[in-house]
């Protein structure tokens, strides 16, 4: 049975009354009285879709006298009990849309041939009119429902806009801009700037799986939780961990939230961040564009997650971009993805603020073409520290590392020398004693060589990222590779020159030995998708005792 015939499953009869009325979508709900209302009882008769009576009515050529009907239909019995004697099917364009149900004649005589002819004519004329009325009412109901939903979405959009910052922080020496573009009326992306103690600014950028209303609801909850937790802690890692603890038990199935939370100290450029599975921010310095690496599980997936923190200083003139995946995962008409390399390339251009965001969006729209239907929410947040600002000590009195340079090299053999030379050039003015400079250069070269050989497997398209930071006491070089072969294999034995000369050890195998010998400390961290070797070299020779 089609949807339009479904309502006649519930037919109203008049108990022991001479006549009844057509039953249809609405008519069945509002039977036309033929007796004063006070004298009638309205009786509903449900006809299952499987009842043969419906098929019988559909094919009947005129009024059906129930007393003579032998159909084995429970509905027939129900109609009889309800006092219905004669049923006139209302069929429009071959579809049963209702019935006229009549009780026995008041005269207690059978319906005459003239009665039946009259009823047949009436049904033939009424059926199309009733069908039209049904369609009009259905369309009106659908339009009203659409209007109601649209109004609700307008309200939801307004409500969601309340969760976004009404204005961006006005920080001296900083240029900040943001863009929020949901794929639908409401979205699952969010960003936020939160005023924290001592003039620090909390910056959150997040992305809820899925889009539309479900994502927007989770976004609203996540936004509130992050705000609440940011008022209780100064640690991005702790804020994310607490947010995860609150969100995880209530997260709907197959949903989670990626979120990057950073705390910026505007006066010094010091930034501490933790990452719950969100895209890594890009930072552009005079030496190129690199990712700021920090990794962790998305919010809402598992309980008890600990989020590591990454710390650094945004140097004067540097530009940071935080973004959701709606940009990098957009597709052009041939289904090619916009991708990270393209964004990284765009970030290399020296502009900032809304100028940068406008250019990124222009580039995106040129890439996707005019007929693009936005696939996912897009959020962009950018911060640029003005050039010519002097480094200041961090607010906590500790020596915060200042970013000296950040760049990437293609992961092909020989480029370790390039890495070494660029690091040497970047730290040339830091006054490192020559011997320590030369040792650091060798350590950088050997570390980069390992990263190229094991992390990129010699593939020029797989870069090695190098970040150089400095404090008053030391210079820190981080070399990050993509861990294609799972990192540098551990050496079973230390290189032994006597055994090598005797042919008992291969001549090679000096790399790790040299690195460890050259710098004050070497640390290795890995998250499965990348490995970072951190080399620390004191700026002055340390004297024991």
């Amino acid at each position, binding site marked *: 049975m089609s949807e339009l015939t479904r309502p006649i499953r519930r037919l109203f009869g008049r108990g022991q009354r001479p006549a009844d009325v057509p039953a249809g979508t609405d008519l069945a709900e509002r039977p036309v009285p033929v007796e004063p209302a006070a004298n009638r009882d309205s009786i509903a008769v449900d006809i299952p879709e499987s009842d043969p009576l419906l098929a019988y009515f559909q094919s009947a050529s005129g009024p059906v006298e129930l007393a003579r009907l032998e159909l084995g239909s429970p509905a027939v019995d129900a109609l009889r009990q309800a006092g219905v004697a004669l049923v006139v099917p209302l069929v429009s364009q071959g579809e049963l849309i209702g019935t006229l149900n009549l009780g026995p004649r008041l005269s207690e005589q059978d319906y005459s041939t003239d009665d039946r002819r009259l009823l047949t004519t009436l049904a033939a004329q009424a059926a199309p009119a009733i069908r039209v009325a049904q369609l009009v009412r259905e369309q009106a109901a659908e339009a009203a429902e659409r209007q109601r939903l649209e109004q609700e979405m307008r309200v939801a959009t307004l409500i969601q806009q309340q969760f976004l910052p009404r204005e961006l922080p006005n920080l001296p020496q900083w240029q900040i801009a943001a863009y929020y573009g949901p794929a639908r009326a409401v979205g699952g992306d969010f960003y936020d700037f939160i005023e924290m103690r001592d003039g620090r600014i909390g910056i959150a950028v997040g992305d809820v799986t899925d889009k539309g209303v479900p994502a927007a609801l989770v976004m609203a909850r996540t936004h509130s939780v992050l705000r609440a937790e940011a008022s209780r802690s100064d640690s991005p890692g702790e804020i994310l961990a607490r947010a995860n603890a609150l969100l995880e038990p209530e997260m709907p199935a197959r949903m989670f939230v990626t979120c990057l939370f950073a705390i910026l100290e505007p006066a010094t450029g010091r930034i501490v961040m933790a990452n719950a599975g969100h895209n890594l921010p890009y930072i552009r310095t005079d030496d190129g564009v690199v990712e700021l690496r920090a990794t962790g599980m998305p919010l809402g997936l598992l309980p008890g997650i600990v989020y590591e923190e990454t710390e650094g200083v945004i140097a004067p003139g540097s530009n940071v971009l935080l973004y959701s995946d709606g940009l990098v995962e957009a597709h052009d008409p041939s289904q090619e993805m916009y991708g990270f390399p393209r964004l990284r390339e765009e970030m290399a251009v020296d502009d900032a603020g809304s100028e940068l965001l406008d250019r990124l969006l222009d580039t995106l729209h040129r890439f996707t073409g005019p007929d693009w239907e936005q696939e996912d929410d897009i959020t962009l947040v950018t911060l640029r520290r003005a050039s010519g600002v002097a480094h200041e000590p961090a607010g906590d009195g500790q020596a915060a590392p200042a970013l000296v340079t950040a760049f990437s090299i293609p992961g092909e053999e*020989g480029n370790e020398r390039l890495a070494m030379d660029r690091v040497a050039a970047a730290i040339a003015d830091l006054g490192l004693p020559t011997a320590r400079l030369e040792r650091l250069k060798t350590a950088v070269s050997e570390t980069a*060589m390992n990263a190229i050989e094991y992390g990129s497997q010699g593939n020029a398209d797989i870069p090695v990222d190098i970040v150089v930071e400095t404090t008053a006491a030391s210079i820190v070089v981080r070399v990050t590779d993509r861990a294609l072969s799972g990192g540098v294999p551990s050496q079973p034995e230390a290189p032994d*020159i006597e055994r090598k000369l005797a042919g008992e050890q*291969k001549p090679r195998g000096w790399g790790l030995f*040299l690195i460890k010998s050259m710098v004050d400390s070497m640390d290795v961290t890995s998250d499965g998708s990348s490995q970072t070797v951190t080399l620390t070299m004191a700026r002055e020779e340390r004297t024991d005792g």
Partner: protein
Amino acid sequence: MDDRTFGAVITEVPEEVRVRLSGDLNARADETLGTTYAQVAALGPHVVSLDFSHVGYINSTGIALVVRLLADARRDGRTVRAIGLTEHYREIFRITRLSDFMEIVEGDAA
């Protein structure tokens, strides 16, 4: 050929064969250094002097190549000297203990 391309020039001086090395001593120097030692061996000297004055960069693979040459020379009963190493690479030869098996001559080649 730029100044980083590895090269070796063999000269005979009284009582030794001197090999003037230049460029970067890394994996790309492998073949050249191997051929060079074969040529040196053919001259049959008791002393082989490696002049590093024009070598700007030595990495761990370069160290391994020196180890291989030193092993070959010792096998052949020859003495190996290193001349013209910068202070930094003298330190590396020291911590790798190459300096225990070859004479490190400070200062430029005579």
